[in-house]
Protein backbone atom coordinates (compact mmCIF):
# COMPACT_ATOMS: atom_id res chain seq x y z
CA UNK A 1 0.00 0.00 0.00
CA UNK A 2 3.00 2.16 0.17
CA UNK A 3 3.35 4.37 -2.86
CA UNK A 4 6.95 3.51 -3.36
CA UNK A 5 6.79 0.23 -5.12
CA UNK A 6 8.61 -2.55 -3.46
CA UNK A 7 11.69 -4.05 -4.78
CA UNK A 8 11.13 -7.44 -6.20
CA UNK A 9 11.35 -9.51 -3.17
CA UNK A 10 11.28 -13.21 -2.98
CA UNK A 11 9.27 -14.73 -0.23
CA UNK A 12 10.71 -17.65 1.55
CA UNK A 13 8.26 -20.50 1.16
CA UNK A 14 9.51 -22.22 4.28
CA UNK A 15 8.43 -19.46 6.61
CA UNK A 16 4.82 -19.19 7.53
CA UNK A 17 2.94 -16.35 5.91
CA UNK A 18 1.48 -14.39 8.79
CA UNK A 19 -0.23 -11.70 6.77
CA UNK A 20 -3.69 -13.22 6.67
CA UNK A 21 -3.75 -13.94 10.41
CA UNK A 22 -2.63 -10.39 11.13
CA UNK A 23 -5.35 -8.88 8.98
CA UNK A 24 -7.97 -11.10 10.56
CA UNK A 25 -6.74 -10.28 14.03
CA UNK A 26 -6.88 -6.55 13.29
CA UNK A 27 -10.40 -6.89 11.94
CA UNK A 28 -11.48 -8.76 15.04
CA UNK A 29 -9.89 -6.12 17.24
CA UNK A 30 -11.57 -3.32 15.28
CA UNK A 31 -14.97 -4.94 15.57
CA UNK A 32 -14.64 -6.20 19.08
CA UNK A 33 -12.89 -3.27 20.72
CA UNK A 34 -16.00 -1.50 22.03
CA UNK A 35 -17.13 -4.71 23.78
CA UNK A 36 -14.11 -4.70 26.02
CA UNK A 37 -13.05 -1.08 26.20
CA UNK A 38 -14.60 1.53 28.41
CA UNK A 39 -16.76 4.25 26.92
CA UNK A 40 -13.98 6.72 27.21
CA UNK A 41 -11.54 4.66 25.18
CA UNK A 42 -14.26 4.09 22.65
CA UNK A 43 -14.83 7.82 22.47
CA UNK A 44 -11.14 8.31 21.80
CA UNK A 45 -11.33 5.75 19.03
CA UNK A 46 -14.29 7.53 17.50
CA UNK A 47 -12.29 10.75 17.46
CA UNK A 48 -9.40 8.88 15.85
CA UNK A 49 -11.70 7.47 13.18
CA UNK A 50 -13.20 10.88 12.51
CA UNK A 51 -9.81 12.51 12.18
CA UNK A 52 -8.86 9.78 9.77
CA UNK A 53 -11.14 11.32 7.14
CA UNK A 54 -9.50 14.75 6.84
CA UNK A 55 -6.16 13.04 7.39
CA UNK A 56 -6.71 10.94 4.28
CA UNK A 57 -7.37 14.13 2.38
CA UNK A 58 -4.27 15.74 3.77
CA UNK A 59 -2.28 12.66 2.96
CA UNK A 60 -3.43 12.87 -0.65
CA UNK A 61 -2.00 16.37 -0.76
CA UNK A 62 1.13 16.00 1.33
CA UNK A 63 2.03 12.40 0.84
CA UNK A 64 1.02 11.90 -2.75
CA UNK A 65 0.96 15.25 -4.48
CA UNK A 66 3.65 16.91 -2.39
CA UNK A 67 1.60 19.93 -1.38
CA UNK A 68 1.61 20.77 2.30
CA UNK A 69 -1.88 22.16 2.76
CA UNK A 70 -3.17 23.47 6.04
CA UNK A 71 -6.55 24.18 4.53
CA UNK A 72 -7.88 20.78 5.56
CA UNK A 73 -8.99 22.34 8.83
CA UNK A 74 -10.91 24.98 6.89
CA UNK A 75 -12.80 22.34 4.93
CA UNK A 76 -13.31 20.34 8.09
CA UNK A 77 -14.85 23.44 9.68
CA UNK A 78 -16.83 24.20 6.56
CA UNK A 79 -18.27 20.70 6.50
CA UNK A 80 -19.08 20.93 10.17
CA UNK A 81 -20.89 24.24 9.85
CA UNK A 82 -22.71 23.19 6.71
CA UNK A 83 -23.99 20.02 8.35
CA UNK A 84 -24.86 21.77 11.57
CA UNK A 85 -26.79 24.51 9.78
CA UNK A 86 -28.68 22.05 7.63
CA UNK A 87 -29.50 19.94 10.61
CA UNK A 88 -30.74 22.93 12.58
CA UNK A 89 -32.59 24.86 9.90
CA UNK A 90 -33.71 22.19 7.47
CA UNK A 91 -33.88 19.28 9.85
CA UNK A 92 -32.24 17.08 7.26
CA UNK A 93 -30.74 13.80 8.33
CA UNK A 94 -27.11 12.93 8.77
CA UNK A 95 -26.49 11.21 5.43
CA UNK A 96 -27.98 14.14 3.55
CA UNK A 97 -25.95 16.61 5.57
CA UNK A 98 -22.79 14.69 5.04
CA UNK A 99 -23.24 14.50 1.30
CA UNK A 100 -24.04 18.20 1.24
CA UNK A 101 -20.95 18.94 3.33
CA UNK A 102 -18.77 16.97 0.95
CA UNK A 103 -20.30 18.64 -2.07
CA UNK A 104 -19.97 22.10 -0.59
CA UNK A 105 -16.37 21.55 0.43
CA UNK A 106 -15.53 20.35 -3.07
CA UNK A 107 -17.31 23.26 -4.71
CA UNK A 108 -15.64 25.85 -2.49
CA UNK A 109 -12.30 24.20 -3.02
CA UNK A 110 -12.35 25.15 -6.67
CA UNK A 111 -12.31 28.95 -6.33
CA UNK A 112 -9.90 28.67 -3.42
CA UNK A 113 -7.67 26.22 -5.19
CA UNK A 114 -7.38 28.13 -8.44
CA UNK A 115 -5.43 31.03 -6.97
CA UNK A 116 -3.69 28.97 -4.29
CA UNK A 117 -2.32 26.44 -6.72
CA UNK A 118 -0.31 29.08 -8.48
CA UNK A 119 1.88 28.96 -5.44
CA UNK A 120 4.49 26.47 -4.43
CA UNK A 121 6.12 25.27 -1.28
CA UNK A 122 5.96 27.59 1.66
CA UNK A 123 3.88 30.20 -0.13
CA UNK A 124 1.25 27.58 -0.72
CA UNK A 125 1.40 26.48 2.90
CA UNK A 126 0.84 30.04 4.06
CA UNK A 127 -1.95 30.66 1.62
CA UNK A 128 -3.78 27.59 2.85
CA UNK A 129 -3.18 28.64 6.43
CA UNK A 130 -4.76 31.92 5.40
CA UNK A 131 -7.92 30.05 4.39
CA UNK A 132 -8.19 28.64 7.88
CA UNK A 133 -7.72 32.07 9.47
CA UNK A 134 -10.26 33.59 7.14
CA UNK A 135 -12.64 30.71 7.81
CA UNK A 136 -12.31 31.44 11.46
CA UNK A 137 -12.94 35.14 10.91
CA UNK A 138 -16.08 34.33 8.93
CA UNK A 139 -17.40 31.92 11.49
CA UNK A 140 -16.79 34.49 14.20
CA UNK A 141 -18.12 37.53 12.43
CA UNK A 142 -21.01 36.25 10.35
CA UNK A 143 -23.06 36.13 13.45
CA UNK A 144 -26.48 36.02 11.86
CA UNK A 145 -25.65 32.61 10.43
CA UNK A 146 -22.99 31.09 12.61
CA UNK A 147 -23.97 32.67 15.91
CA UNK A 148 -20.37 33.77 16.19
CA UNK A 149 -18.53 32.53 19.19
CA UNK A 150 -21.61 31.13 20.76
CA UNK A 151 -21.36 28.43 18.21
CA UNK A 152 -24.10 26.11 17.09
CA UNK A 153 -25.05 23.47 19.55
CA UNK A 154 -27.49 20.71 20.17
CA UNK A 155 -26.92 19.23 16.78
CA UNK A 156 -28.65 15.92 16.24
CA UNK A 157 -26.77 12.73 16.83
CA UNK A 158 -26.09 10.98 13.54
CA UNK A 159 -29.12 9.07 12.35
CA UNK A 160 -29.17 6.79 9.40
CA UNK A 161 -32.50 5.65 8.14
CA UNK A 162 -33.97 3.65 5.32
CA UNK A 163 -37.62 3.69 4.45
CA UNK A 164 -39.11 4.30 7.83
CA UNK A 165 -36.53 2.30 9.68
CA UNK A 166 -33.90 4.47 11.33
CA UNK A 167 -31.04 4.07 13.71
CA UNK A 168 -29.28 6.70 15.75
CA UNK A 169 -25.75 6.49 17.01
CA UNK A 170 -26.58 7.94 20.36
CA UNK A 171 -23.65 6.75 22.42
CA UNK A 172 -19.94 6.37 21.75
CA UNK A 173 -20.20 2.66 21.07
CA UNK A 174 -22.83 3.11 18.40
CA UNK A 175 -20.97 6.10 17.03
CA UNK A 176 -17.89 3.92 16.87
CA UNK A 177 -19.48 1.46 14.52
CA UNK A 178 -20.87 4.22 12.38
CA UNK A 179 -17.49 5.94 12.24
CA UNK A 180 -15.80 2.63 11.56
CA UNK A 181 -18.00 1.94 8.57
CA UNK A 182 -17.54 5.46 7.22
CA UNK A 183 -13.80 5.45 7.82
CA UNK A 184 -13.46 2.07 6.16
CA UNK A 185 -15.45 3.29 3.20
CA UNK A 186 -13.39 6.46 2.97
CA UNK A 187 -10.20 4.45 3.16
CA UNK A 188 -11.41 2.27 0.34
CA UNK A 189 -12.25 5.29 -1.79
CA UNK A 190 -8.89 6.80 -0.99
CA UNK A 191 -7.16 3.59 -1.89
CA UNK A 192 -8.90 3.53 -5.26
CA UNK A 193 -7.78 7.08 -5.96
CA UNK A 194 -4.13 6.57 -5.13
CA UNK A 195 -3.97 3.21 -6.82
CA UNK A 196 -5.39 4.57 -10.05
CA UNK A 197 -3.14 5.87 -12.81
CA UNK A 198 -4.07 9.33 -11.59
CA UNK A 199 -2.57 8.45 -8.23
CA UNK A 200 0.65 7.63 -10.00
CA UNK A 201 0.55 10.97 -11.75
CA UNK A 202 0.11 12.71 -8.41
CA UNK A 203 3.21 10.99 -7.12
CA UNK A 204 5.04 12.09 -10.24
CA UNK A 205 4.04 15.67 -9.49
CA UNK A 206 5.30 15.30 -5.94
CA UNK A 207 8.62 13.98 -7.16
CA UNK A 208 9.25 16.56 -9.85
CA UNK A 209 6.57 18.78 -11.22
CA UNK A 210 8.44 20.11 -14.23
CA UNK A 211 9.48 16.65 -15.28
CA UNK A 212 5.88 15.50 -14.93
CA UNK A 213 4.77 18.43 -17.10
CA UNK A 214 7.30 17.53 -19.72
CA UNK A 215 5.84 14.03 -19.88
CA UNK A 216 2.44 15.42 -20.77
CA UNK A 217 0.89 15.38 -17.33
CA UNK A 218 -1.35 18.42 -16.90
CA UNK A 219 -0.09 18.98 -13.42
CA UNK A 220 -2.35 21.92 -12.72
CA UNK A 221 -5.49 19.88 -13.33
CA UNK A 222 -4.24 17.08 -11.16
CA UNK A 223 -3.25 19.34 -8.34
CA UNK A 224 -6.65 20.98 -8.43
CA UNK A 225 -8.32 17.59 -8.50
CA UNK A 226 -6.28 16.50 -5.49
CA UNK A 227 -7.14 19.70 -3.66
CA UNK A 228 -10.84 19.22 -4.35
CA UNK A 229 -10.86 15.56 -3.39
CA UNK A 230 -8.98 16.36 -0.21
CA UNK A 231 -11.51 19.07 0.58
CA UNK A 232 -14.25 16.49 0.17
CA UNK A 233 -12.59 14.24 2.73
CA UNK A 234 -12.21 17.22 5.02
CA UNK A 235 -15.87 18.15 4.66
CA UNK A 236 -16.94 14.57 5.36
CA UNK A 237 -14.86 14.52 8.52
CA UNK A 238 -16.29 17.81 9.71
CA UNK A 239 -19.82 16.59 9.14
CA UNK A 240 -19.34 13.39 11.09
CA UNK A 241 -17.52 15.27 13.81
CA UNK A 242 -20.20 17.85 14.32
CA UNK A 243 -22.95 15.29 14.52
CA UNK A 244 -21.00 13.25 16.99
CA UNK A 245 -19.81 16.05 19.21
CA UNK A 246 -23.00 18.06 18.70
CA UNK A 247 -21.32 21.48 18.79
CA UNK A 248 -19.84 23.68 16.10
CA UNK A 249 -17.81 26.70 17.04
CA UNK A 250 -15.20 28.98 15.51
CA UNK A 251 -12.71 27.10 17.61
CA UNK A 252 -12.92 24.40 14.95
CA UNK A 253 -10.63 26.59 12.91
CA UNK A 254 -8.08 26.69 15.66
CA UNK A 255 -4.54 25.62 15.07
CA UNK A 256 -5.11 22.64 17.33
CA UNK A 257 -7.09 20.89 14.61
CA UNK A 258 -4.68 21.75 11.86
CA UNK A 259 -1.80 20.57 13.97
CA UNK A 260 -3.51 17.34 14.90
CA UNK A 261 -4.17 16.47 11.28
CA UNK A 262 -0.64 17.36 10.31
CA UNK A 263 0.86 15.27 13.04
CA UNK A 264 -1.31 12.30 12.17
CA UNK A 265 -0.19 12.40 8.55
CA UNK A 266 3.43 13.37 8.98
CA UNK A 267 3.96 11.28 12.06
CA UNK A 268 2.08 8.32 10.67
CA UNK A 269 3.87 8.45 7.39
CA UNK A 270 2.92 10.67 4.50
CA UNK A 271 2.23 8.70 1.39
CA UNK A 272 1.11 5.60 3.19
CA UNK A 273 -2.46 4.59 3.95
CA UNK A 274 -1.59 2.25 6.77
CA UNK A 275 0.78 4.81 8.22
CA UNK A 276 -1.97 7.38 8.43
CA UNK A 277 -4.47 4.96 9.93
CA UNK A 278 -1.88 3.99 12.48
CA UNK A 279 -1.06 7.66 13.03
CA UNK A 280 -4.63 8.67 13.74
CA UNK A 281 -4.99 6.05 16.44
CA UNK A 282 -1.56 6.56 17.86
CA UNK A 283 -1.74 10.31 18.19
CA UNK A 284 -5.26 10.43 19.50
CA UNK A 285 -4.33 7.69 21.96
CA UNK A 286 -1.19 9.55 22.93
CA UNK A 287 -3.00 12.79 23.46
CA UNK A 288 -5.69 11.03 25.52
CA UNK A 289 -3.33 8.72 27.34
CA UNK A 290 -1.23 11.58 28.55
CA UNK A 291 -4.20 12.98 30.40
CA UNK A 292 -3.03 11.01 33.41
CA UNK A 293 -0.62 13.87 34.01
CA UNK A 294 -2.50 17.01 33.10
CA UNK A 295 0.26 19.48 33.86
CA UNK A 296 2.80 17.49 31.94
CA UNK A 297 0.47 16.38 29.21
CA UNK A 298 1.40 18.83 26.51
CA UNK A 299 5.07 18.75 27.42
CA UNK A 300 5.06 14.99 27.14
CA UNK A 301 3.16 15.20 23.88
CA UNK A 302 5.77 17.59 22.52
CA UNK A 303 8.58 15.34 23.65
CA UNK A 304 6.93 12.34 22.04
CA UNK A 305 6.85 14.24 18.79
CA UNK A 306 10.56 14.89 19.05
CA UNK A 307 11.33 11.29 19.83
CA UNK A 308 9.16 10.27 16.93
CA UNK A 309 11.04 12.52 14.56
CA UNK A 310 14.41 11.26 15.64
CA UNK A 311 13.45 7.64 15.76
CA UNK A 312 11.14 7.56 12.74
CA UNK A 313 11.98 10.52 10.55
CA UNK A 314 9.73 9.20 7.80
CA UNK A 315 6.85 8.46 10.12
CA UNK A 316 5.75 4.97 10.98
CA UNK A 317 5.09 3.83 7.45
CA UNK A 318 8.51 2.28 6.79
CA UNK A 319 8.36 0.57 10.15
CA UNK A 320 4.91 -0.85 9.40
CA UNK A 321 6.17 -1.90 6.01
CA UNK A 322 8.96 -3.87 7.62
CA UNK A 323 6.52 -5.63 9.88
CA UNK A 324 4.35 -6.42 6.91
CA UNK A 325 7.33 -7.77 4.99
CA UNK A 326 8.39 -9.80 7.93
CA UNK A 327 4.89 -11.18 8.31
CA UNK A 328 4.85 -12.12 4.68
CA UNK A 329 8.09 -13.99 5.15
CA UNK A 330 9.93 -11.54 2.94
CA UNK A 331 13.52 -10.73 3.61
CA UNK A 332 14.29 -7.38 2.14
CA UNK A 333 17.86 -6.64 1.40
CA UNK A 334 18.18 -3.01 0.59
CA UNK A 335 16.92 -0.46 3.03
CA UNK A 336 14.47 1.65 1.12
CA UNK A 337 14.12 4.05 4.01
Amino acid at each position, binding site marked *: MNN*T*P*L*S*TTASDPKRRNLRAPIVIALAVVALGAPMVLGTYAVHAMVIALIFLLPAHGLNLLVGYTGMLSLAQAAFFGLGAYASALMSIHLGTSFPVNMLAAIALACVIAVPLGIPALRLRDTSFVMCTLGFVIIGQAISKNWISVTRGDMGLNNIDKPTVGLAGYSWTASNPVEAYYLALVLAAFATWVFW*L*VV*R*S*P*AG*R*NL*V*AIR*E*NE*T*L*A*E*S*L*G*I*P*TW*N*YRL*AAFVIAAGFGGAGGSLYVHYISVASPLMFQTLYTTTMLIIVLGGGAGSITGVIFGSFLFVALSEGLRIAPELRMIAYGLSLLILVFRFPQGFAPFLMRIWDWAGGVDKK*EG*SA
Partner: protein
Amino acid sequence: MTSGKVSVLDIKGLTKTYGAVTAVDNVDLHIDHGEILGLIGPNGSGKSTFFDCSTGLATPDSGSVSLEGSDITNWSLNRIAREGRMLRSFQKTVVFKKLDVEENLVIAGQMFTFPSVLSTFSVGKRSRMRIEGLRKHARELIELTGLGPVAHMAAGNLSGGQQKLIQFASMLMPDPRLIMLDEPMAGINPKLVERVIDTIRYANREMGVSFLIIEHNIDVVTSLCSRAIVLDQGRKLCEGTPAEVIANKQVREAYLGG
Protein backbone atom coordinates in the same frame (compact mmCIF):
# COMPACT_ATOMS: atom_id res chain seq x y z
CA MET B 1 12.68 26.33 -47.41
CA THR B 2 12.48 22.69 -48.28
CA SER B 3 10.47 21.26 -51.08
CA GLY B 4 6.70 21.51 -50.58
CA LYS B 5 6.22 19.10 -47.66
CA VAL B 6 5.32 20.36 -44.21
CA SER B 7 8.05 20.15 -41.60
CA VAL B 8 7.42 18.39 -38.32
CA LEU B 9 8.59 21.42 -36.45
CA ASP B 10 8.99 24.84 -37.91
CA ILE B 11 10.38 27.63 -35.80
CA LYS B 12 10.66 31.18 -37.02
CA GLY B 13 12.49 34.10 -35.50
CA LEU B 14 12.71 32.72 -31.99
CA THR B 15 14.18 35.26 -29.57
CA LYS B 16 14.65 35.20 -25.82
CA THR B 17 16.50 37.70 -23.69
CA TYR B 18 17.43 37.65 -20.03
CA GLY B 19 18.39 41.13 -18.96
CA ALA B 20 21.34 42.12 -21.06
CA VAL B 21 21.90 38.62 -22.42
CA THR B 22 20.13 37.63 -25.59
CA ALA B 23 20.21 33.90 -25.08
CA VAL B 24 18.44 33.07 -28.33
CA ASP B 25 18.58 35.62 -31.10
CA ASN B 26 16.16 35.38 -33.98
CA VAL B 27 16.72 31.71 -34.75
CA ASP B 28 14.88 29.87 -37.51
CA LEU B 29 14.86 26.13 -37.53
CA HIS B 30 12.83 23.40 -39.15
CA ILE B 31 12.89 19.66 -38.84
CA ASP B 32 11.66 17.54 -41.66
CA HIS B 33 9.70 14.37 -41.24
CA GLY B 34 11.96 11.54 -40.29
CA GLU B 35 14.96 13.75 -39.89
CA ILE B 36 17.60 13.61 -37.19
CA LEU B 37 18.83 17.12 -36.73
CA GLY B 38 21.83 18.07 -34.65
CA LEU B 39 22.09 21.29 -32.67
CA ILE B 40 25.58 22.18 -31.57
CA GLY B 41 27.42 25.22 -30.32
CA PRO B 42 29.70 26.44 -27.57
CA ASN B 43 28.65 26.51 -23.95
CA GLY B 44 26.12 29.22 -23.29
CA SER B 45 25.23 29.63 -26.94
CA GLY B 46 21.55 29.25 -26.24
CA LYS B 47 20.81 25.67 -27.21
CA SER B 48 18.99 24.68 -24.04
CA THR B 49 17.18 28.00 -23.97
CA PHE B 50 16.08 27.32 -27.51
CA PHE B 51 14.64 24.00 -26.31
CA ASP B 52 12.92 25.67 -23.38
CA CYS B 53 11.31 28.28 -25.61
CA SER B 54 10.11 25.83 -28.20
CA THR B 55 8.60 23.36 -25.74
CA GLY B 56 6.67 25.72 -23.52
CA LEU B 57 8.95 25.65 -20.49
CA ALA B 58 9.89 29.27 -21.14
CA THR B 59 7.95 31.82 -23.13
CA PRO B 60 9.84 33.27 -26.07
CA ASP B 61 9.99 37.04 -26.40
CA SER B 62 9.13 36.74 -30.03
CA GLY B 63 9.00 34.18 -32.77
CA SER B 64 6.65 31.36 -33.61
CA VAL B 65 6.71 27.62 -33.19
CA SER B 66 4.56 25.43 -35.33
CA LEU B 67 4.19 21.72 -35.17
CA GLU B 68 2.90 19.93 -38.26
CA GLY B 69 1.64 23.24 -39.49
CA SER B 70 -0.31 24.25 -36.40
CA ASP B 71 0.84 27.07 -34.18
CA ILE B 72 1.87 25.90 -30.72
CA THR B 73 3.81 28.96 -29.62
CA ASN B 74 1.86 29.60 -26.47
CA TRP B 75 1.00 26.06 -25.56
CA SER B 76 2.04 24.80 -22.17
CA LEU B 77 4.78 22.27 -21.66
CA ASN B 78 2.36 19.47 -20.88
CA ARG B 79 0.07 20.25 -23.78
CA ILE B 80 2.93 20.29 -26.24
CA ALA B 81 4.00 16.93 -24.93
CA ARG B 82 0.57 15.37 -24.77
CA GLU B 83 -1.26 16.82 -27.71
CA GLY B 84 1.74 17.58 -29.85
CA ARG B 85 3.46 14.31 -28.99
CA MET B 86 6.65 16.28 -28.98
CA LEU B 87 8.88 15.32 -26.08
CA ARG B 88 12.01 16.75 -24.64
CA SER B 89 14.66 15.74 -22.16
CA PHE B 90 16.54 18.04 -19.82
CA GLN B 91 20.22 18.75 -19.76
CA LYS B 92 20.32 18.46 -15.99
CA THR B 93 19.44 14.87 -15.24
CA VAL B 94 15.99 14.67 -13.68
CA VAL B 95 14.07 11.57 -12.67
CA PHE B 96 11.31 10.73 -10.21
CA LYS B 97 13.78 10.02 -7.48
CA LYS B 98 11.80 7.92 -5.07
CA LEU B 99 10.17 5.77 -7.72
CA ASP B 100 11.81 2.80 -9.30
CA VAL B 101 12.91 2.72 -12.90
CA GLU B 102 9.86 0.85 -14.10
CA GLU B 103 7.47 3.30 -12.45
CA ASN B 104 9.40 6.16 -13.97
CA LEU B 105 8.78 4.74 -17.39
CA VAL B 106 5.14 3.84 -16.77
CA ILE B 107 4.48 7.44 -15.76
CA ALA B 108 6.16 8.62 -18.92
CA GLY B 109 3.68 6.64 -20.95
CA GLN B 110 0.49 7.23 -19.03
CA MET B 111 -0.79 10.46 -20.47
CA PHE B 112 -0.45 9.05 -23.95
CA THR B 113 -2.39 5.92 -23.17
CA PHE B 114 -5.34 7.42 -21.34
CA PRO B 115 -7.60 9.67 -23.33
CA SER B 116 -8.34 12.19 -20.57
CA VAL B 117 -7.51 13.28 -17.08
CA LEU B 118 -10.77 11.87 -15.86
CA SER B 119 -10.12 8.45 -17.32
CA THR B 120 -6.91 8.19 -15.31
CA PHE B 121 -8.95 8.01 -12.15
CA SER B 122 -10.42 4.72 -13.20
CA VAL B 123 -9.19 1.49 -11.70
CA GLY B 124 -11.32 -0.73 -13.89
CA LYS B 125 -10.18 -3.64 -15.94
CA ARG B 126 -9.55 -1.53 -18.98
CA SER B 127 -7.37 0.82 -17.05
CA ARG B 128 -5.43 -2.04 -15.54
CA MET B 129 -4.84 -3.50 -18.95
CA ARG B 130 -3.55 -0.22 -20.26
CA ILE B 131 -1.09 -0.06 -17.41
CA GLU B 132 -0.07 -3.66 -17.99
CA GLY B 133 0.70 -2.75 -21.56
CA LEU B 134 2.83 0.16 -20.44
CA ARG B 135 4.65 -2.03 -18.00
CA LYS B 136 5.51 -4.48 -20.73
CA HIS B 137 6.79 -1.74 -22.95
CA ALA B 138 8.77 -0.28 -20.03
CA ARG B 139 10.45 -3.60 -19.41
CA GLU B 140 11.50 -3.83 -23.03
CA LEU B 141 13.08 -0.40 -22.84
CA ILE B 142 14.76 -1.25 -19.57
CA GLU B 143 16.42 -4.22 -21.21
CA LEU B 144 17.37 -2.14 -24.19
CA THR B 145 19.15 0.45 -22.06
CA GLY B 146 20.84 -2.08 -19.83
CA LEU B 147 18.95 -0.98 -16.74
CA GLY B 148 17.64 -4.48 -16.07
CA PRO B 149 19.59 -5.14 -12.89
CA VAL B 150 18.41 -1.90 -11.31
CA ALA B 151 14.86 -1.87 -12.67
CA HIS B 152 13.36 -1.93 -9.22
CA MET B 153 15.67 0.44 -7.48
CA ALA B 154 14.67 3.97 -6.62
CA ALA B 155 15.80 6.11 -9.53
CA GLY B 156 17.33 8.72 -7.27
CA ASN B 157 19.77 6.13 -5.97
CA LEU B 158 21.15 5.28 -9.36
CA SER B 159 24.38 6.53 -10.86
CA GLY B 160 24.45 9.66 -12.98
CA GLY B 161 24.64 7.73 -16.22
CA GLN B 162 21.87 5.36 -15.25
CA GLN B 163 19.59 8.30 -14.53
CA LYS B 164 20.40 9.78 -17.90
CA LEU B 165 19.35 6.51 -19.48
CA ILE B 166 16.02 6.61 -17.67
CA GLN B 167 15.43 9.99 -19.22
CA PHE B 168 16.21 8.66 -22.62
CA ALA B 169 14.01 5.60 -22.20
CA SER B 170 11.16 7.82 -20.96
CA MET B 171 11.13 9.61 -24.30
CA LEU B 172 10.41 6.35 -26.06
CA MET B 173 7.55 5.28 -23.84
CA PRO B 174 4.84 7.14 -25.70
CA ASP B 175 4.65 6.98 -29.44
CA PRO B 176 6.10 10.41 -30.10
CA ARG B 177 6.33 12.30 -33.31
CA LEU B 178 9.36 14.36 -32.32
CA ILE B 179 11.93 13.92 -29.60
CA MET B 180 14.24 16.70 -28.50
CA LEU B 181 17.23 15.45 -26.58
CA ASP B 182 19.52 17.73 -24.60
CA GLU B 183 22.88 15.98 -24.44
CA PRO B 184 21.60 12.42 -24.23
CA MET B 185 25.07 10.89 -24.31
CA ALA B 186 26.69 12.97 -21.60
CA GLY B 187 28.05 10.63 -18.96
CA ILE B 188 26.97 7.46 -20.77
CA ASN B 189 29.68 4.88 -21.22
CA PRO B 190 30.94 4.44 -24.78
CA LYS B 191 29.48 0.98 -25.23
CA LEU B 192 26.05 2.15 -24.24
CA VAL B 193 26.44 5.23 -26.41
CA GLU B 194 26.54 2.88 -29.37
CA ARG B 195 23.42 1.19 -28.12
CA VAL B 196 21.64 4.50 -27.65
CA ILE B 197 22.62 5.55 -31.14
CA ASP B 198 21.21 2.31 -32.49
CA THR B 199 18.03 2.86 -30.58
CA ILE B 200 17.63 6.36 -31.93
CA ARG B 201 18.16 5.08 -35.42
CA TYR B 202 15.67 2.32 -34.88
CA ALA B 203 13.05 4.69 -33.52
CA ASN B 204 13.71 7.00 -36.40
CA ARG B 205 13.45 4.39 -39.07
CA GLU B 206 10.85 1.99 -37.76
CA MET B 207 8.67 4.29 -35.74
CA GLY B 208 9.07 7.41 -37.84
CA VAL B 209 10.20 9.58 -34.97
CA SER B 210 12.05 12.76 -35.82
CA PHE B 211 14.84 13.94 -33.56
CA LEU B 212 16.47 17.18 -32.58
CA ILE B 213 19.62 16.47 -30.63
CA ILE B 214 21.92 18.75 -28.70
CA GLU B 215 25.21 16.98 -28.28
CA HIS B 216 28.80 17.94 -27.60
CA ASN B 217 30.08 14.55 -28.69
CA ILE B 218 30.89 15.35 -32.31
CA ASP B 219 31.25 11.69 -33.24
CA VAL B 220 27.67 11.11 -32.24
CA VAL B 221 26.48 14.07 -34.27
CA THR B 222 28.40 12.94 -37.33
CA SER B 223 27.19 9.39 -37.17
CA LEU B 224 23.55 10.15 -36.40
CA CYS B 225 22.55 13.42 -37.95
CA SER B 226 21.80 14.17 -41.52
CA ARG B 227 22.01 17.86 -40.86
CA ALA B 228 23.37 20.04 -38.10
CA ILE B 229 22.84 23.61 -36.99
CA VAL B 230 25.43 25.56 -35.09
CA LEU B 231 24.46 28.24 -32.60
CA ASP B 232 26.85 30.83 -31.30
CA GLN B 233 25.91 33.59 -28.88
CA GLY B 234 22.28 32.92 -29.52
CA ARG B 235 22.54 33.27 -33.29
CA LYS B 236 22.61 30.66 -35.98
CA LEU B 237 26.20 30.47 -37.10
CA CYS B 238 25.83 27.93 -39.85
CA GLU B 239 23.86 24.96 -41.05
CA GLY B 240 24.59 21.94 -43.21
CA THR B 241 25.64 18.31 -43.12
CA PRO B 242 27.80 17.45 -40.15
CA ALA B 243 30.84 17.24 -42.35
CA GLU B 244 30.19 20.67 -43.81
CA VAL B 245 29.59 22.17 -40.45
CA ILE B 246 32.73 20.76 -38.94
CA ALA B 247 34.75 22.00 -41.82
CA ASN B 248 33.51 25.54 -41.28
CA LYS B 249 36.30 27.76 -40.03
CA GLN B 250 34.17 29.81 -37.69
CA VAL B 251 32.79 26.65 -36.14
CA ARG B 252 36.24 25.31 -35.61
CA GLU B 253 37.24 28.49 -33.82
CA ALA B 254 34.17 28.98 -31.72
CA TYR B 255 33.34 25.44 -30.94
CA LEU B 256 35.84 22.77 -31.63
CA GLY B 257 38.79 24.72 -30.35
CA GLY B 258 40.97 24.88 -33.43
